[in-house]
């Protein structure tokens, strides 16, 4: 399947702090001082409103698997931008960059997704304003 690199931070008028567009304020949930990179296996994809979630199983140094919920834009926004749910599949190896939740939950606001090392998404995720 043809995959496109989706970049729409610019379209939302933001390079950093999140779109003034959506369901909740970025800063109400995520910490702009907690950038993180996760690498793991896509274990579940929720193509849902108000946000999509890419669940990634990440092994820590001791081999313990922790599942992170990576919050992306809602399906309508992703589809309009050319990103389809079939562009990733369960078992794919993903690297995801973003910002962690303030409350310590295993949740992040997605800014970049790499599939097998290739950048396939970059943007604010529209998940937050």
């Amino acid at each position, binding site marked *: 399947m043809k995959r496109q690199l989706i970049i729409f931070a610019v379209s939302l008028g933001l390079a950093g702090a999140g779109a003034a567009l959506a369901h909740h*304020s970025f800063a*109400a949930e995520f910490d702009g001082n907690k950038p993180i990179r996760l690498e793991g296996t896509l274990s579940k994809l929720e193509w849902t409103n108000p946000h999509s979630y890419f669940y990634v199983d990440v092994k820590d140094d001791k081999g313990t698997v922790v599942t992170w919920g990576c919050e992306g834009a809602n399906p309508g*926004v992703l589809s309009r931008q050319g990103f389809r749910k079939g562009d990733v599949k369960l078992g794919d190896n993903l690297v995801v960059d973003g910002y962690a939740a303030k409350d310590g939950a295993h949740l992040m606001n997605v800014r970049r997704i790499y599939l097998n090392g*290739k950048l396939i998404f970059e943007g604010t995720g529209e998940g937050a304003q």
Partner: protein
Amino acid sequence: MPALLPPATYGQGLTAPDVKSSKPAPRTADGHPDLSGYWKGTRETKPVGNLAKDLPGLKLPLTPAGEAALKHNLTATIDPESLCILGGIPRHNASGLPFEVLQGANKVVFLYWYSYFRLIPVDAKRKHSEDPDPSFFGEELGHWDGDALVVDSIGFKDTQVWADENADPHSDQLHVVERWTRPDYDHIRVETLIDDPKFYTKPFNYTRTWVLGKPGEEIHEYSCSENNVDRDHLGFGPGPIRPDGTRGFGDLKPLPPPLPQTTKK
């Protein structure tokens, strides 16, 4: 292979650049401007989500009770919209999300993301109820004043409401008068008078223009509570308000360096 979308496609999102238009507004059979269309905010509208957009210093004229209500919203309430509660008016007019208008002879419908709507009867003879049931959009009555659709609304809720994305408050004394016009084919405009003597020392205005979406763009289903994972992780208030009147951190700590990408051949 991944293909980078060209810059021109960046704009095919929720907002659009402003455009010049020489085409007149369409009119309905009864001669009124037809406000129907899918309308997108422009990037020139700044700050989005802030009712004080047009006021000097972005300062709302809050009464002491209004100041207290704002403090309460900022420090003790979760954004109602993020809990899938209707945004209501005036919040939806300050939103960054597009909306769609369908205009009939005696009713006008505004369709919003989240699958919310407001249905406005257009009848100059209709009067407000003596004691309307409080609601998020208020008891809204429409009539035509020349080429302007005037929507006069009272009877608002005063709990679980933010008047805009910045958590500015409104009370149950809110009275909103919107004047909707379509100055040309490609624009819709609202001039809003917001009067809330409980929370604001004087009435103030909020004016905004949106541009027409592209053919085929329209509102889609958006079930806010389908999978609201955020619900249990949200803090109070909208987060820090920047000097430019928008929300969020001033500077985000940089992400990890991008992974090297091979050049496409």
